[in-house]
Protein backbone atom coordinates (compact mmCIF):
# COMPACT_ATOMS: atom_id res chain seq x y z
CA UNK A 1 0.00 0.00 0.00
CA UNK A 2 2.84 2.27 0.90
CA UNK A 3 4.19 1.75 -2.60
CA UNK A 4 1.16 3.29 -4.32
CA UNK A 5 1.45 6.46 -2.28
CA UNK A 6 5.22 6.79 -2.71
CA UNK A 7 6.76 9.69 -4.59
CA UNK A 8 8.41 7.31 -7.02
CA UNK A 9 5.09 5.78 -7.99
CA UNK A 10 3.54 9.18 -8.46
CA UNK A 11 6.44 10.41 -10.58
CA UNK A 12 6.36 7.31 -12.79
CA UNK A 13 2.60 7.45 -13.19
CA UNK A 14 2.68 11.12 -14.19
CA UNK A 15 5.37 10.39 -16.76
CA UNK A 16 3.51 7.37 -18.14
CA UNK A 17 0.31 9.42 -18.36
CA UNK A 18 2.13 12.10 -20.33
CA UNK A 19 3.57 9.43 -22.61
CA UNK A 20 0.21 7.78 -23.07
CA UNK A 21 -1.40 11.09 -24.03
CA UNK A 22 1.10 11.22 -26.87
CA UNK A 23 0.20 7.64 -27.79
CA UNK A 24 -3.46 8.64 -27.90
CA UNK A 25 -2.67 11.71 -29.96
CA UNK A 26 -0.83 9.58 -32.52
CA UNK A 27 -3.66 7.03 -32.52
CA UNK A 28 -6.42 9.56 -33.19
CA UNK A 29 -4.48 11.62 -35.74
CA UNK A 30 -3.69 8.41 -37.64
CA UNK A 31 -7.36 7.38 -37.69
CA UNK A 32 -8.52 10.86 -38.65
CA UNK A 33 -6.07 11.00 -41.54
CA UNK A 34 -5.98 7.39 -42.69
CA UNK A 35 -9.73 6.70 -42.73
CA UNK A 36 -10.52 9.29 -45.47
CA UNK A 37 -7.16 8.94 -47.25
CA UNK A 38 -7.63 5.17 -47.43
CA UNK A 39 -10.96 5.67 -49.18
CA UNK A 40 -9.34 7.93 -51.76
CA UNK A 41 -6.56 5.38 -52.31
CA UNK A 42 -9.13 2.61 -52.71
CA UNK A 43 -10.84 4.61 -55.47
CA UNK A 44 -7.43 4.93 -57.14
CA UNK A 45 -6.83 1.21 -56.94
CA UNK A 46 -10.24 0.57 -58.53
CA UNK A 47 -9.89 3.26 -61.19
CA UNK A 48 -10.71 2.38 -64.78
CA UNK A 49 -7.73 4.56 -65.78
CA UNK A 50 -5.02 1.90 -65.93
CA UNK A 51 -1.89 4.03 -65.16
CA UNK A 52 -3.54 5.43 -62.03
CA UNK A 53 -4.64 1.96 -60.95
CA UNK A 54 -1.15 0.56 -61.36
CA UNK A 55 0.51 3.51 -59.67
CA UNK A 56 -1.82 3.23 -56.67
CA UNK A 57 -1.42 -0.52 -56.40
CA UNK A 58 2.37 -0.20 -56.58
CA UNK A 59 2.40 2.36 -53.78
CA UNK A 60 0.15 0.13 -51.68
CA UNK A 61 2.41 -2.84 -52.38
CA UNK A 62 5.55 -0.94 -51.29
CA UNK A 63 3.95 0.48 -48.15
CA UNK A 64 2.37 -2.79 -47.09
CA UNK A 65 5.42 -4.79 -48.10
CA UNK A 66 7.95 -2.94 -45.96
CA UNK A 67 8.10 -2.53 -42.18
CA UNK A 68 6.46 0.55 -40.70
CA UNK A 69 9.58 1.05 -38.54
CA UNK A 70 11.65 1.42 -41.67
CA UNK A 71 9.17 3.92 -43.11
CA UNK A 72 9.27 6.01 -39.94
CA UNK A 73 13.08 6.07 -39.92
CA UNK A 74 13.28 6.90 -43.63
CA UNK A 75 10.67 9.63 -43.45
CA UNK A 76 12.30 11.23 -40.42
CA UNK A 77 15.97 11.13 -41.42
CA UNK A 78 16.15 11.00 -45.23
CA UNK A 79 14.69 14.46 -46.06
CA UNK A 80 17.27 16.18 -43.85
CA UNK A 81 20.14 14.03 -45.08
CA UNK A 82 19.21 14.73 -48.70
CA UNK A 83 18.71 18.43 -47.86
CA UNK A 84 15.11 18.36 -49.20
CA UNK A 85 13.58 19.85 -46.08
CA UNK A 86 13.91 19.64 -42.32
CA UNK A 87 11.24 18.57 -39.90
CA UNK A 88 10.62 21.12 -37.13
CA UNK A 89 13.10 20.49 -34.35
CA UNK A 90 12.28 18.74 -31.11
CA UNK A 91 9.35 16.62 -30.03
CA UNK A 92 6.81 18.38 -32.28
CA UNK A 93 8.88 17.62 -35.38
CA UNK A 94 9.18 13.97 -34.38
CA UNK A 95 5.44 13.83 -33.79
CA UNK A 96 4.71 15.35 -37.17
CA UNK A 97 6.99 12.94 -39.03
CA UNK A 98 5.59 9.94 -37.20
CA UNK A 99 2.01 11.03 -37.90
CA UNK A 100 2.72 11.36 -41.61
CA UNK A 101 4.29 7.90 -41.69
CA UNK A 102 1.41 6.34 -39.77
CA UNK A 103 -1.30 8.02 -41.84
CA UNK A 104 0.25 6.86 -45.12
CA UNK A 105 0.90 3.34 -43.84
CA UNK A 106 -2.52 2.83 -42.35
CA UNK A 107 -4.30 4.49 -45.29
CA UNK A 108 -2.79 1.81 -47.53
CA UNK A 109 -4.02 -1.00 -45.29
CA UNK A 110 -7.44 0.62 -44.95
CA UNK A 111 -7.66 1.14 -48.73
CA UNK A 112 -7.54 -2.62 -49.31
CA UNK A 113 -10.24 -3.16 -46.71
CA UNK A 114 -12.38 -0.48 -48.35
CA UNK A 115 -11.80 -2.05 -51.75
CA UNK A 116 -12.96 -5.41 -50.48
CA UNK A 117 -15.98 -3.78 -48.86
CA UNK A 118 -17.01 -1.84 -51.95
CA UNK A 119 -16.46 -4.73 -54.33
CA UNK A 120 -18.37 -6.98 -51.94
CA UNK A 121 -21.58 -4.98 -52.41
CA UNK A 122 -23.53 -6.84 -55.12
CA UNK A 123 -23.47 -5.16 -58.52
CA UNK A 124 -27.26 -5.33 -58.59
CA UNK A 125 -27.39 -2.66 -55.88
CA UNK A 126 -25.66 -0.16 -58.11
CA UNK A 127 -27.78 -1.18 -61.10
CA UNK A 128 -30.96 -0.75 -59.08
CA UNK A 129 -29.82 2.76 -58.21
CA UNK A 130 -28.93 3.54 -61.82
CA UNK A 131 -32.29 2.48 -63.26
CA UNK A 132 -33.95 4.64 -60.61
CA UNK A 133 -32.16 7.66 -62.06
CA UNK A 134 -29.64 8.15 -59.27
CA UNK A 135 -26.23 9.67 -59.94
CA UNK A 136 -23.09 7.68 -59.16
CA UNK A 137 -22.43 9.92 -56.17
CA UNK A 138 -25.97 9.41 -54.84
CA UNK A 139 -25.60 5.65 -55.26
CA UNK A 140 -22.37 5.72 -53.28
CA UNK A 141 -23.74 7.94 -50.53
CA UNK A 142 -27.19 6.44 -50.12
CA UNK A 143 -26.75 2.81 -51.12
CA UNK A 144 -23.19 1.50 -51.23
CA UNK A 145 -21.63 3.36 -48.31
CA UNK A 146 -23.56 1.86 -45.41
CA UNK A 147 -23.42 -1.65 -46.88
CA UNK A 148 -19.68 -1.20 -47.27
CA UNK A 149 -19.28 0.03 -43.69
CA UNK A 150 -21.16 -2.98 -42.40
CA UNK A 151 -18.84 -5.28 -44.32
CA UNK A 152 -15.63 -3.59 -43.23
CA UNK A 153 -16.25 -3.18 -39.51
CA UNK A 154 -14.80 -6.58 -38.51
CA UNK A 155 -11.56 -6.34 -40.58
CA UNK A 156 -11.28 -2.64 -39.69
CA UNK A 157 -11.53 -3.50 -35.99
CA UNK A 158 -8.54 -5.78 -36.40
CA UNK A 159 -6.45 -3.03 -37.96
CA UNK A 160 -7.49 -0.47 -35.37
CA UNK A 161 -6.53 -2.76 -32.50
CA UNK A 162 -3.19 -3.32 -34.22
CA UNK A 163 -2.81 0.45 -34.53
CA UNK A 164 -3.25 0.86 -30.76
CA UNK A 165 -0.10 -1.20 -30.27
CA UNK A 166 1.76 -0.06 -33.39
CA UNK A 167 1.91 3.47 -31.98
CA UNK A 168 4.80 2.15 -29.83
CA UNK A 169 6.95 1.95 -32.97
CA UNK A 170 7.24 5.73 -32.78
CA UNK A 171 9.88 5.32 -30.09
CA UNK A 172 12.35 4.32 -32.79
CA UNK A 173 12.90 8.04 -33.46
CA UNK A 174 12.61 8.78 -29.74
CA UNK A 175 9.07 10.09 -29.69
CA UNK A 176 8.24 10.12 -26.00
CA UNK A 177 5.23 7.89 -26.07
CA UNK A 178 4.30 5.57 -23.24
CA UNK A 179 6.85 2.78 -23.92
CA UNK A 180 9.66 5.30 -24.27
CA UNK A 181 8.59 6.75 -20.93
CA UNK A 182 8.45 3.35 -19.27
CA UNK A 183 11.86 2.44 -20.53
CA UNK A 184 13.32 5.76 -19.40
CA UNK A 185 13.06 4.67 -15.77
CA UNK A 186 15.48 1.84 -16.49
CA UNK A 187 18.02 4.26 -17.93
CA UNK A 188 17.37 7.19 -15.66
CA UNK A 189 14.61 9.80 -15.56
CA UNK A 190 13.75 12.33 -12.87
CA UNK A 191 16.46 10.87 -10.68
CA UNK A 192 15.01 7.36 -10.91
CA UNK A 193 17.00 4.58 -12.59
CA UNK A 194 17.10 0.81 -12.72
CA UNK A 195 13.32 0.33 -12.44
CA UNK A 196 11.86 -2.34 -14.73
CA UNK A 197 8.24 -2.35 -13.60
CA UNK A 198 7.27 0.94 -15.32
CA UNK A 199 8.04 -0.60 -18.72
CA UNK A 200 5.80 -3.59 -18.05
CA UNK A 201 3.20 -1.43 -16.39
CA UNK A 202 2.62 0.28 -19.78
CA UNK A 203 0.85 -2.92 -20.85
CA UNK A 204 -2.03 -1.94 -18.57
CA UNK A 205 -2.56 1.23 -20.60
CA UNK A 206 -2.67 -0.72 -23.85
CA UNK A 207 -4.98 -3.35 -22.43
CA UNK A 208 -7.46 -0.85 -21.06
CA UNK A 209 -7.42 1.24 -24.20
CA UNK A 210 -7.76 -1.67 -26.65
CA UNK A 211 -10.52 -3.00 -24.42
CA UNK A 212 -12.46 0.24 -24.80
CA UNK A 213 -11.84 0.32 -28.56
CA UNK A 214 -12.99 -3.31 -28.92
CA UNK A 215 -16.14 -2.53 -26.98
CA UNK A 216 -16.98 0.53 -29.08
CA UNK A 217 -16.40 -1.29 -32.37
CA UNK A 218 -18.52 -4.19 -31.14
CA UNK A 219 -21.26 -1.70 -30.39
CA UNK A 220 -21.01 -0.31 -33.92
CA UNK A 221 -21.18 -3.82 -35.35
CA UNK A 222 -24.35 -4.54 -33.37
CA UNK A 223 -25.82 -1.22 -34.41
CA UNK A 224 -25.39 -2.19 -38.05
CA UNK A 225 -26.99 -5.59 -37.59
CA UNK A 226 -30.46 -4.16 -38.29
CA UNK A 227 -30.04 -5.16 -41.94
CA UNK A 228 -28.43 -8.01 -43.79
Amino acid sequence: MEFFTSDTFRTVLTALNTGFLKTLQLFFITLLGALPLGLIISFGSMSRFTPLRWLTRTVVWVIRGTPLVLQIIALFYVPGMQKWFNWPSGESGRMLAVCVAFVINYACYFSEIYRGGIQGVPKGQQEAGLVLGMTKLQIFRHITLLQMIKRIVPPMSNEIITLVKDTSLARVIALQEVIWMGESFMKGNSGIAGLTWPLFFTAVYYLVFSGIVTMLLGKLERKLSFFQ
Partner: protein
Amino acid sequence: MAILEVHNIEKHFGATRVLEDISFSLEKGQALAIIGSSGSGKTTLLRCLNFLETPNHGSISVNGNVIFDANDPITQRESEVRKKRLHFGLVFQSFNLFPQYTALKNVTLAKELLSQELPEYKQNKKAILEEIQAEGRELLKKMGLSDRADHYPSQLSGGQQQRVAIARALALKPDILCFDEPTSALDPELTGEVLKVIRGLAEQKTTMIIVTHEMAFARDVADEVIFMDGGVIVEKGPARQVIEHPQEERTRQFLSRYAEN
Protein backbone atom coordinates in the same frame (compact mmCIF):
# COMPACT_ATOMS: atom_id res chain seq x y z
CA MET B 1 -48.10 6.13 -82.52
CA ALA B 2 -46.05 3.49 -80.77
CA ILE B 3 -44.74 4.44 -77.34
CA LEU B 4 -41.58 2.42 -77.92
CA GLU B 5 -39.73 1.72 -81.14
CA VAL B 6 -36.60 -0.37 -81.23
CA HIS B 7 -34.66 -0.37 -84.48
CA ASN B 8 -31.94 -2.83 -85.48
CA ILE B 9 -30.39 -3.19 -82.05
CA GLU B 10 -27.16 -5.18 -81.95
CA LYS B 11 -25.02 -6.02 -78.97
CA HIS B 12 -21.70 -7.85 -78.97
CA PHE B 13 -19.58 -8.89 -76.01
CA GLY B 14 -16.21 -9.25 -77.69
CA ALA B 15 -16.73 -11.71 -80.52
CA THR B 16 -19.99 -13.01 -79.07
CA ARG B 17 -23.07 -11.58 -80.73
CA VAL B 18 -25.71 -11.49 -78.04
CA LEU B 19 -28.32 -9.46 -79.94
CA GLU B 20 -28.64 -9.24 -83.69
CA ASP B 21 -30.87 -6.89 -85.59
CA ILE B 22 -33.60 -6.62 -82.97
CA SER B 23 -36.54 -4.46 -84.05
CA PHE B 24 -39.98 -4.21 -82.54
CA SER B 25 -42.47 -1.66 -81.35
CA LEU B 26 -44.88 -1.42 -78.47
CA GLU B 27 -48.17 0.45 -78.21
CA LYS B 28 -49.13 2.41 -75.12
CA GLY B 29 -51.07 0.31 -72.64
CA GLN B 30 -49.92 -2.97 -74.09
CA ALA B 31 -48.01 -5.78 -72.44
CA LEU B 32 -45.28 -7.53 -74.37
CA ALA B 33 -43.86 -10.85 -73.19
CA ILE B 34 -40.44 -12.01 -74.31
CA ILE B 35 -39.86 -15.74 -74.10
CA GLY B 36 -36.92 -17.92 -75.04
CA SER B 37 -34.34 -20.20 -73.51
CA SER B 38 -31.53 -18.99 -71.27
CA GLY B 39 -28.81 -17.21 -73.20
CA SER B 40 -31.13 -16.16 -75.99
CA GLY B 41 -30.50 -12.47 -75.27
CA LYS B 42 -33.78 -11.56 -73.54
CA THR B 43 -32.16 -10.09 -70.44
CA THR B 44 -29.53 -8.24 -72.48
CA LEU B 45 -32.31 -6.67 -74.51
CA LEU B 46 -34.00 -5.37 -71.33
CA ARG B 47 -30.66 -4.13 -70.04
CA CYS B 48 -30.12 -2.22 -73.30
CA LEU B 49 -33.50 -0.53 -72.93
CA ASN B 50 -32.55 0.52 -69.39
CA PHE B 51 -29.11 1.78 -70.45
CA LEU B 52 -27.33 -0.83 -68.35
CA GLU B 53 -25.74 -2.03 -71.59
CA THR B 54 -24.89 0.12 -74.58
CA PRO B 55 -25.91 -1.44 -77.91
CA ASN B 56 -23.26 -1.47 -80.63
CA HIS B 57 -25.78 -0.64 -83.28
CA GLY B 58 -29.34 0.60 -83.64
CA SER B 59 -31.65 3.13 -82.06
CA ILE B 60 -34.41 3.35 -79.47
CA SER B 61 -37.27 5.87 -79.56
CA VAL B 62 -39.83 6.65 -76.89
CA ASN B 63 -42.93 8.63 -77.88
CA GLY B 64 -41.29 9.37 -81.21
CA ASN B 65 -38.15 10.89 -79.66
CA VAL B 66 -34.85 9.14 -80.29
CA ILE B 67 -33.41 8.50 -76.83
CA PHE B 68 -30.59 6.28 -77.99
CA ASP B 69 -28.71 6.13 -81.27
CA ALA B 70 -25.52 4.08 -81.50
CA ASN B 71 -24.21 6.52 -84.13
CA ASP B 72 -24.87 9.62 -82.03
CA PRO B 73 -22.57 9.91 -79.00
CA ILE B 74 -24.60 12.82 -77.63
CA THR B 75 -27.43 10.41 -76.79
CA GLN B 76 -24.99 8.39 -74.71
CA ARG B 77 -23.75 11.12 -72.39
CA GLU B 78 -24.04 10.19 -68.77
CA SER B 79 -26.09 13.25 -67.78
CA GLU B 80 -28.51 12.65 -70.66
CA VAL B 81 -28.77 8.94 -70.00
CA ARG B 82 -29.78 9.48 -66.38
CA LYS B 83 -32.92 11.41 -67.35
CA LYS B 84 -33.79 9.14 -70.25
CA ARG B 85 -33.57 6.04 -68.12
CA LEU B 86 -36.61 7.28 -66.28
CA HIS B 87 -38.78 6.40 -69.28
CA PHE B 88 -38.18 2.83 -68.17
CA GLY B 89 -38.60 1.00 -64.91
CA LEU B 90 -36.88 -2.31 -64.28
CA VAL B 91 -37.81 -5.10 -61.91
CA PHE B 92 -34.88 -7.45 -61.44
CA GLN B 93 -34.91 -11.21 -61.17
CA SER B 94 -33.05 -10.98 -57.84
CA PHE B 95 -35.14 -8.01 -56.53
CA ASN B 96 -32.05 -5.92 -55.63
CA LEU B 97 -33.84 -4.12 -52.83
CA PHE B 98 -31.67 -1.85 -50.70
CA PRO B 99 -31.18 -3.92 -47.52
CA GLN B 100 -30.55 -0.96 -45.19
CA TYR B 101 -33.89 0.69 -45.93
CA THR B 102 -37.42 -0.27 -45.00
CA ALA B 103 -39.88 -1.32 -47.68
CA LEU B 104 -41.33 2.20 -47.72
CA LYS B 105 -37.95 3.90 -47.98
CA ASN B 106 -36.99 1.54 -50.81
CA VAL B 107 -40.02 2.84 -52.69
CA THR B 108 -39.53 6.54 -51.89
CA LEU B 109 -35.72 6.98 -51.90
CA ALA B 110 -35.21 7.63 -55.62
CA LYS B 111 -38.11 10.06 -55.77
CA GLU B 112 -36.84 11.94 -52.72
CA LEU B 113 -33.43 12.30 -54.33
CA LEU B 114 -34.96 13.44 -57.62
CA SER B 115 -37.17 15.98 -55.87
CA GLN B 116 -34.06 17.68 -54.47
CA GLU B 117 -33.47 18.91 -58.01
CA LEU B 118 -36.80 20.75 -58.09
CA PRO B 119 -36.47 24.55 -57.87
CA GLU B 120 -39.17 24.73 -55.19
CA TYR B 121 -37.62 21.95 -53.07
CA LYS B 122 -36.09 24.26 -50.47
CA GLN B 123 -39.31 26.14 -49.65
CA ASN B 124 -41.65 23.16 -49.79
CA LYS B 125 -39.36 20.43 -48.56
CA LYS B 126 -41.74 19.15 -45.91
CA ALA B 127 -44.81 19.08 -48.12
CA ILE B 128 -42.93 17.44 -50.99
CA LEU B 129 -41.50 14.70 -48.79
CA GLU B 130 -44.86 14.07 -47.16
CA GLU B 131 -46.48 13.68 -50.54
CA ILE B 132 -43.79 11.22 -51.66
CA GLN B 133 -44.35 9.24 -48.45
CA ALA B 134 -48.09 9.15 -49.01
CA GLU B 135 -47.61 7.99 -52.60
CA GLY B 136 -45.20 5.32 -51.41
CA ARG B 137 -47.68 4.00 -48.86
CA GLU B 138 -50.41 4.02 -51.49
CA LEU B 139 -48.23 1.96 -53.85
CA LEU B 140 -47.40 -0.56 -51.13
CA LYS B 141 -51.12 -0.80 -50.37
CA LYS B 142 -51.76 -1.57 -54.02
CA MET B 143 -49.21 -4.35 -53.75
CA GLY B 144 -51.01 -5.71 -50.68
CA LEU B 145 -48.14 -4.71 -48.39
CA SER B 146 -49.66 -1.98 -46.22
CA ASP B 147 -48.63 -3.79 -43.06
CA ARG B 148 -45.08 -4.35 -44.28
CA ALA B 149 -44.10 -0.72 -44.97
CA ASP B 150 -41.71 -0.52 -42.02
CA HIS B 151 -40.12 -3.94 -42.48
CA TYR B 152 -36.60 -4.38 -43.79
CA PRO B 153 -36.13 -6.55 -46.90
CA SER B 154 -34.54 -9.35 -44.84
CA GLN B 155 -37.78 -9.56 -42.84
CA LEU B 156 -39.87 -10.14 -45.97
CA SER B 157 -40.50 -13.26 -48.04
CA GLY B 158 -39.21 -13.40 -51.59
CA GLY B 159 -42.65 -12.70 -53.00
CA GLN B 160 -43.09 -9.71 -50.71
CA GLN B 161 -39.64 -8.41 -51.64
CA GLN B 162 -40.45 -8.63 -55.33
CA ARG B 163 -43.71 -6.76 -54.78
CA VAL B 164 -41.79 -4.01 -52.97
CA ALA B 165 -39.45 -3.93 -55.96
CA ILE B 166 -42.42 -3.50 -58.29
CA ALA B 167 -43.73 -0.64 -56.13
CA ARG B 168 -40.26 0.90 -56.20
CA ALA B 169 -40.19 0.78 -60.00
CA LEU B 170 -43.71 2.21 -60.23
CA ALA B 171 -42.90 5.11 -57.89
CA LEU B 172 -41.14 7.00 -60.65
CA LYS B 173 -44.08 6.50 -63.01
CA PRO B 174 -42.09 5.07 -65.92
CA ASP B 175 -43.63 5.03 -69.39
CA ILE B 176 -42.64 1.42 -69.79
CA LEU B 177 -42.17 -1.05 -66.97
CA CYS B 178 -39.75 -3.90 -67.64
CA PHE B 179 -39.65 -7.20 -65.77
CA ASP B 180 -36.62 -9.45 -65.98
CA GLU B 181 -37.85 -12.94 -65.06
CA PRO B 182 -39.62 -11.55 -62.00
CA THR B 183 -40.55 -14.94 -60.56
CA SER B 184 -37.48 -17.03 -61.44
CA ALA B 185 -35.85 -16.53 -58.05
CA LEU B 186 -39.03 -17.41 -56.14
CA ASP B 187 -40.29 -20.65 -54.66
CA PRO B 188 -43.18 -21.99 -56.74
CA GLU B 189 -45.71 -21.19 -54.01
CA LEU B 190 -44.63 -17.53 -54.01
CA THR B 191 -44.77 -16.90 -57.76
CA GLY B 192 -48.57 -16.62 -57.71
CA GLU B 193 -48.68 -13.47 -55.59
CA VAL B 194 -46.21 -11.69 -57.86
CA LEU B 195 -47.92 -12.80 -61.07
CA LYS B 196 -51.22 -11.61 -59.63
CA VAL B 197 -49.79 -8.14 -59.09
CA ILE B 198 -48.42 -8.00 -62.64
CA ARG B 199 -51.76 -9.24 -63.96
CA GLY B 200 -53.43 -6.38 -62.09
CA LEU B 201 -51.04 -3.88 -63.70
CA ALA B 202 -51.89 -5.29 -67.13
CA GLU B 203 -55.59 -4.86 -66.41
CA GLN B 204 -54.91 -1.19 -65.61
CA LYS B 205 -53.21 -0.88 -69.00
CA THR B 206 -49.70 -0.39 -67.74
CA THR B 207 -47.25 -0.53 -70.63
CA MET B 208 -44.99 -3.46 -69.85
CA ILE B 209 -42.27 -5.69 -71.24
CA ILE B 210 -42.03 -8.97 -69.38
CA VAL B 211 -39.22 -11.45 -69.83
CA THR B 212 -40.66 -14.67 -68.45
CA HIS B 213 -40.55 -18.43 -68.40
CA GLU B 214 -44.20 -18.66 -67.34
CA MET B 215 -45.82 -19.56 -70.65
CA ALA B 216 -49.41 -19.70 -69.42
CA PHE B 217 -48.94 -16.32 -67.78
CA ALA B 218 -47.48 -14.82 -70.96
CA ARG B 219 -50.39 -16.18 -72.98
CA ASP B 220 -53.03 -14.82 -70.61
CA VAL B 221 -51.55 -11.46 -69.67
CA ALA B 222 -49.52 -10.27 -72.65
CA ASP B 223 -50.98 -8.74 -75.76
CA GLU B 224 -47.97 -9.66 -77.83
CA VAL B 225 -45.27 -12.28 -77.47
CA ILE B 226 -41.77 -12.28 -78.88
CA PHE B 227 -39.84 -15.54 -79.03
CA MET B 228 -36.07 -15.08 -79.09
CA ASP B 229 -33.40 -17.61 -79.83
CA GLY B 230 -29.67 -17.10 -80.36
CA GLY B 231 -29.94 -13.32 -80.13
CA VAL B 232 -32.56 -12.88 -82.83
CA ILE B 233 -36.34 -12.52 -82.81
CA VAL B 234 -37.60 -15.78 -84.29
CA GLU B 235 -41.30 -15.06 -84.03
CA LYS B 236 -43.58 -12.33 -82.82
CA GLY B 237 -47.29 -11.93 -82.83
CA PRO B 238 -50.44 -11.91 -80.71
CA ALA B 239 -49.80 -13.81 -77.47
CA ARG B 240 -52.33 -16.57 -77.92
CA GLN B 241 -51.28 -17.20 -81.49
CA VAL B 242 -47.53 -17.46 -80.76
CA ILE B 243 -47.95 -19.72 -77.77
CA GLU B 244 -50.80 -21.91 -78.97
CA HIS B 245 -50.17 -21.93 -82.74
CA PRO B 246 -46.54 -21.03 -83.35
CA GLN B 247 -45.60 -20.61 -87.00
CA GLU B 248 -41.90 -21.28 -86.67
CA GLU B 249 -40.34 -24.67 -86.09
CA ARG B 250 -37.92 -23.33 -83.44
CA THR B 251 -40.78 -21.80 -81.47
CA ARG B 252 -42.67 -25.11 -81.62
CA GLN B 253 -39.65 -27.02 -80.33
CA PHE B 254 -39.11 -24.56 -77.50
CA LEU B 255 -42.75 -24.62 -76.42
CA SER B 256 -43.02 -28.41 -76.65
CA ARG B 257 -40.09 -28.72 -74.25
CA TYR B 258 -42.06 -26.57 -71.82
CA ALA B 259 -45.19 -28.64 -72.32
CA GLU B 260 -43.24 -31.78 -71.40
CA ASN B 261 -42.26 -30.25 -68.10
